[in-house]
């Protein structure tokens, strides 16, 4: 969830005509669906980070958490607009696309075909006659940063460039050039660099280094020029220094390059709707014509409202309320959605402004009605149908077995499902025959496979508890996972419920584990039978290398091997750094379900 820091006086108290205390504002946020995380100041924030804070401001700052789909609230301007509507102080503005006066032609942005291979989409717009004070300027920069980190997915999907239009000259062109053949002075630098030098230069940059990979190895880099071949930007890395925005900038050219056109449009709309507030004619935006290589052209931005119709009945029966169409329309106004009722009052016709890209379906309208009505004002009801509860048989048996094993004096442990390849194989003297599911991208290096045996976790538990008094008697009944390519397994793998117990003391206690097996079988009402008899279980000496020769055996049930037990081989103990004997048993419990 993104967090936005806003100047409380400028973006909350003044527009809402009320000085809130933190508790009051927190309540308001809660009901509206945003969250006041902290009331602080620039000085306090810096002090907390251990940075120098002496000359920073004590002005009250609200840190507000915004839902991940509300890009229109990623800046103070948007938050005040939304809250003003919610508190019915002022209706949200209507945004207008206004063509240049005196019949002047639109600024044009030509797209070269080479961009298709690296970053195929571009959209643009212009804000005219803007007056930015320091607060608005900071907010403008901050919004771009928030958009980059959220909807733009760290600039992979969309990158924003903003420029002082009075320093450049249209028409513009969006091209893709080999890194060596482009050269410009990047933002806030003094030296011109070619593409390769630039990549090298920003390698160690704390902020920009993480974006380099997006284009670094491409044969051609995306780049935007003006008509005099001045570089506006090298998206998605950096703008040129030449056209940078200053406090005194009057006319702003905004371009968004993208791999996802839908998101590029949302980002452009968000930037222009938020900051057209500072135009001499507020909430107006001048369009730019993007001309594609094939000659077709599209004019951006599209600030038209979209119409969504929602059934009054659908809204009422989804929330569990009984509201008239007019009341619903009124509630939607609080959520910045202007709505009208159909003639027969069976529908509300909602006009979705360009700021509300989160509205995909009538259910989103229904949600806004519910929020405006107040989740906590909805009368609670309960579903009116009876059911008979059914347990999963394997889970029921698992719980029954766990209790029996604990009654036999064993303590349940809960090691992890993920482990290293060695723990699961080599350390158990086991060969990897490709039966384990392997992870491709673990952050924790020791997580390489999903366990195929419960034994590694048990041995690790004993290792971690070695300084406590013995004997140790521990167990776990849980899932292991096997790769399984048989067609009935859609995920090409399956879980299996295993039972594992380990006894450890000065001597191996082999007969104790043997006794535990007999007891478990007694409780499962399974009888010991001669070898080859399918009507019970029997034990047969085995060659299982995890265990010590002569003290190892397989357990058969209905003539199938369901597991094994034995004195854990000293080589295995050595790997797990356990200095006293252990006996272990592991069996599959699924045949008993």
């Amino acid at each position, binding site marked *: 969830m993104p967090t936005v820091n806003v100047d409380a006086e400028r973006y909350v108290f003044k527009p809402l005509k009320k000085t809130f205390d933190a508790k009051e504002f927190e309540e308001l946020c809660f*009901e509206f669906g945003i969250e006041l995380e902290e009331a602080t100041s620039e000085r306090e924030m810096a002090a907390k980070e251990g940075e120098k804070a002496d000359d920073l401001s004590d002005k009250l700052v609200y840190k507000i958490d915004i*839902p*991940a789909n509300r890009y229109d609230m990623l800046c103070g301007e948007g938050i005040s607009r939304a809250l003003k509507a919610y508190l019915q102080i002022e209706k949200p503005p209507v945004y207008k696309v206004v063509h240049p006066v005196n019949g002047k032609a639109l600024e044009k942005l030509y797209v070269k075909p080479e961009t298709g291979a690296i970053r195929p989409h571009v959209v643009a717009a212009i804000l005219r006659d803007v007056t930015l004070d320091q607060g608005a300027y900071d907010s403008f920069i901050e919004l771009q940063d928030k958009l980059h980190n959220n909807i733009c997915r760290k600039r992979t999907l969309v990158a924003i460039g903003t420029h002082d239009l009075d320093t450049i000259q249209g028409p513009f062109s969006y091209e893709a050039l080999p890194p060596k053949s482009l050269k410009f002075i990047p933002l806030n630098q003094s030296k011109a660099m070619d593409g390769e030098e630039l990549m090298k230069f920003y390698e160690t940059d704390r902020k920009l280094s993480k974006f380099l990979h997006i284009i670094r190895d491409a044969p051609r880099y995306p780049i935007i020029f003006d008509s005099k071949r001045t570089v506006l930007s090298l998206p998605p890395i950096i703008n040129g220094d030449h056209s940078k925005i200053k406090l005194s900038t009057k006319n702003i050219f905004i371009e968004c390059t993208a791999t996802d056109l839908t998101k590029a449009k949302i980002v452009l709309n968000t930037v222009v709707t938020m900051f057209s507030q500072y135009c001499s004619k507020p909430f107006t935006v001048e369009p730019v014509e993007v001309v594609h290589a094939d000659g077709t052209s599209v004019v951006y931005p599209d600030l038209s409202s979209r119409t969504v119709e929602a059934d009054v009945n659908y809204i009422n029966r*989804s929330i569990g309320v009984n509201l008239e169409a007019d009341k619903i329309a009124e509630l939607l106004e609080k959520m910045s959605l202007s709505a009208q009722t159909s003639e027969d009052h069976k529908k509300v016709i909602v006009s979705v402004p360009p700021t509300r890209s989160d509205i995909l*379906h009538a259910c989103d309208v229904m949600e806004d009605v519910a929020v405006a009505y107040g989740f906590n004002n909805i009368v609670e009801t309960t*579903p009116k149908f009876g059911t008979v509860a059914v347990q999963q048989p394997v889970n029921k048996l698992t719980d029954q077995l766990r209790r029996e094993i*604990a009654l036999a004096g064993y*303590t349940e442990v809960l090691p992890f499902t993920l482990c290293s390849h060695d723990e699961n194989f080599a350390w158990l003297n086991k060969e990897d025959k490709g039966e384990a599911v392997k992870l*491709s991208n673990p952050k924790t290096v020791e997580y390489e496979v999903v366990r195929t045996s419960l034994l590694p976790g048990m041995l690790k538990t004993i*290792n971690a508890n070695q300084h406590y008094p013995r004997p140790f008697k521990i167990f776990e009944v849980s899932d292991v996972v096997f790769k399984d390519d048989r067609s009935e397994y859609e995920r090409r793998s399956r879980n299996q419920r295993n039972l594992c117990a380990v006894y450890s003391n000065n001597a191996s206690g082999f007969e104790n584990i043997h006794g535990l097996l007999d007891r478990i079988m007694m409780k499962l009402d399974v009888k010991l039978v001669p070898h080859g008899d399918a009507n019970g279980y029997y034990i047969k000496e085995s060659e299982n290398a995890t265990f010590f020769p002569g003290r190892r055996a397989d357990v058969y049930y209905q003539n199938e091997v369901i597991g094994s037990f034995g004195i854990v081989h000293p080589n295995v103990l050595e790997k797990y750094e356990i200095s006293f004997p252990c006996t272990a048993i592991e069996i599959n419990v699924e045949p008993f379900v």
Partner: protein
Amino acid sequence: MSLREAYTTLFLSILDKDGEIKDTADLKHEGKSVDQETVIGVLKSLESREVIKYETISREQLVLTEEGADIADNGSYEARVFYAVPEGEENGISVADLKSKLGQAAQFGQGRAIKNKWIKKSANGGFTRAVESIVDESQNLLRDIREKGAYHDEKVVKDLKKQKHISASKVTSYRVVKGDKFTTQIVKEETDITEEMLKSGEWKTATFKKYNFNAAGVQPRSGALHPLMKVREEYRQIFLELGFSEMPTAQYVESSFWNFDALFQPQQHPARDAHDTFFLSDPATSDRMPMDYVERVKQVHSVGGYGSIGYGYDWKIAEAEKLVLRTHTTAVSSNMLYKLAKEFQETGEWKPVKWFSIDKVFRNETLDATHLAEFHQIEGVVADRGLTLGDLIGTLHGFFKKLGIQKLRFKPAYNPYTEPSMEIFAWHDGLNKWVEIGNSGMFRPEMLLPMGLPEDVAVIAWGLSTERPTMIKYGYNNIRDLVGHKCRLDMVNRNPIARVDK
């Protein structure tokens, strides 16, 4: 004979003769003062059988400090100076020699020795004796105090304390008289009833040692269930009591399709990032999903449908085919709802359901005190025609009441597959604030309708983790003290039974 037995004999014989022991501090055994700590043990045991009665005598006793003891043993500093000066007026000692002989004592003692007129200065600057013999009263006084532990002259005591030669310490001794059942006969005390005693009837006459109820009992050897698994059982029980059936969740490996796409979670969503999700290298992908349904999911993501405009992006089957370790049990819920829809399509008959699951889910987290790569998720799902947000709120109140949580409130939130989405907050009396305890919502039509569920069927669902409430309940700050191979076996053994509503 043990010391206790010796004391017992001693006390009983004195009492028999004199009828009273005025003060046990005066008693001697084998020439030494008796040890009062052993005395009280013996007295308590005799008193419990009413052989004697006793009362405590508390008083201050004077004891010598280290320096005081040195003086008592080796003489006062002035006496040491006197004895260091050779006899006879003609013989003397230089200041330097005196110092090298006595060290610091020469400095402390020479002034007082002169004042006492024991020695005098000689012509050559040294000292000679002024008297033939002396009486060292300081030494005698300290020896006397050491023996008696007291002195009659308060002023002298005060001075000696000031000089740090003596200090006061509290001592306890006892006055003892005969009890109602006084006897000089020493009885053997039994500690336990034995089989032999039952047979012989000896238990009728035997005397039993008093049991110390303040000591710890002997712990039984026992096995134990893990705290988190006990909490899991409790939640399971609650769901079953509420009529919820258990979903089959024994499937950790899931396709991105069921884990994300089927839930209308777009392919560029941050949760699908390698930073958050475990992808697999073997097996890496699966194409065994129901393809007609996959096609409908693709449509609703990329171009919309069912009343939705969709996300408007290029949906790729390759992304959906990637296998992952499931990041939530909702992957199972989505699969179950699909099966329910299929059943409805085939039979035309709608059956409402209440489902739950509690099982492991996996996140590619960097491990710390509150984050693990695997944890248990609790999930509840109800599906029927015409369910409302009010039904969800009522169901949540019903569920959390079972956990002993009476006060809930709900905050609007965002989740890609539920709309409305509500964060659940509970009032925490201890913390005196609202605490987030879970998430809930109604599944989006873009998720339900491609499955083939009837249009008026609504599905409400909620989820929480098992670990978080368990940590709060039992006061763990580090998740690794509760889960994983590093947790202590005695923690598992001592952990109380799980009563989630208490």
